[in-house]
């Protein structure tokens, strides 16, 4: 196992954010973690990354970690190449990795431009490159595609899926979108600080919500009900359906 989490609990003030979480993740697999906002998904990734100490329990990670969050961890004053060079140097990794990564990503022609001049999609790509530049064995993704257009999101999912399999990376992906959960080998649900693996027949407990022209997101049933209730109250249109049950479609408009 590349990542093992054993009986981890985290308390923030009066609130139990993680409750006796245990799971193991293998090399070459993508594990999607879904759950309502505030259910503890990001905290779990922080604990695995070593950014937060668990109050109880143990975390084992073998190999380098690459961490990508919603907010790109990029210095906008540095150029694309300087950003990657800085990260590689701090990790004591080999700078020769940077060139091929840039070539593959399509950012080579922007390598001497300041990161602050890149588009949102390019920044995300650079952020993924940054995480990959140190040759990680574990990739932690915390909703890294939020705000991206459909084409950029699809490209991101494809790259992560390919790299995970080819380089035998263990990828833990906190997500709400159906495209990303579909690309995962296993799906876990975080609910009230508890992590549960969803078997294929249980994935229908997830609901897919579509608002306006936005791409659909997948959320647990409780959150879907809250979204629908809010949509009825505010008069905004929202489409909501259980995942994997074709033809059943409830709508609130």
């Amino acid at each position, binding site marked *: 196992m590349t990542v093992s989490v054993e009986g981890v609990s985290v308390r923030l003030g009066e609130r139990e954010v993680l409750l006796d979480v245990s799971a193991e993740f293998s090399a070459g697999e993508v594990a999607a973690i879904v759950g309502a906002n505030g259910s503890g998904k990001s905290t779990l990734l*922080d604990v695995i*990354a*070593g*950014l*937060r100490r668990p109050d109880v329990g143990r975390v084992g990670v073998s190999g*380098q*970690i690459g*961490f990508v*969050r919603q*907010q790109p*961890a*990029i*210095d906008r*004053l*540095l150029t694309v190449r*300087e*950003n990657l060079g*800085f*990260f590689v*140097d*701090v*990790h*004591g990794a080999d700078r020769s990795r940077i060139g091929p990564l840039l070539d593959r990503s399509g950012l080579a022609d922007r390598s001497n431009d300041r990161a602050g001049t890149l588009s949102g999609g390019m920044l995300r790509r650079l952020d993924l490159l*940054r*995480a990959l530049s*140190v040759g990680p064995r574990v990739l*932690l993704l915390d909703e890294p595609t939020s705000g991206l257009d459909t084409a950029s999101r699809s490209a991101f999912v494809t790259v992560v899926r390919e790299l995970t399999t080819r380089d035998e990376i263990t990828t833990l992906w906190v997500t709400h979108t159906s495209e990303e959960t579909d690309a995962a080998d296993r799906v876990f649900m975080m609910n009230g600080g508890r992590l549960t693996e969803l078997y294929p027949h249980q994935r229908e407990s997830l609901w897919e919500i579509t608002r306006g022209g936005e791409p659909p997101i997948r959320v647990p049933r409780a959150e879907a009900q809250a979204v629908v209730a809010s949509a009825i109250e505010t008069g905004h249109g929202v489409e909501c359906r259980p995942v994997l049950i074709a033809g059943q479609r409830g709508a609130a408009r």
Partner: protein
Amino acid sequence: MSVVVAMLRREVTRFVRQPIRAAATVGTPALLLLGLGAGLAGELGGLSDAGYAGFLLPGMIAMASLFAGVFGAISLIDDRDNGPMLAILAGPAPVRRIGFGKVLALALLAIAQSAPLLAGAWLVGLRPTAGGVLLALAGIAALAFGTAGVALAIAWRSPDTGAFHGAMNLVLLPSWMLAGAFYPPDTAHPVMRWITLADPLSWPVATIRLGLLGESRMPGPDWVFVTLTIAFALVGGACGTLMARRR
């Protein structure tokens, strides 16, 4: 060592690309030196051979160093919560080495921003000796390490920028105001004299003043304040390094 060098290189690159930072850090003390030095020249001109501006200069150099440390340290908070520092902290680099790299980088930048104000000595009419200039430079370096370290120690432990501003207003700015930058501690009210003596920022200010004016204007032997200045640099730098943490 690559961690420290990488941190240093990044901070210097960022600094070079933000000229407004240097302008703000040097501009405010220079304006204060000009305004207060000229404005109070008639009343307080006897405080040094070069008038009140000559007396003020060491305190204004300290201000530039303090501002450089504070501006640099405050950027750490966003960097740590949402920026590249977060990704670095998730990696295997020892957190204390990261902390030391940050202290070193901010201290060198603080020296680069405050040392040019030494030129003000000749502009206001002071004529320090070569040894005096070296002592003043040593005082500036010690001050830079101490203030950068203390500011970073506060930043590492601040949950957000609001908390950092609070700590700065509560600790760092009053500390500078009470460091004998504006008044000679040796002739101050006894209570004020003790407060100034206990204020760590007063030690490097006294050392710089000793170098530029030939007198520290602190009650007590000068070697004590020079020694305390070195101690301030070491303790401040150590605090900034040791307080670094992943969260």
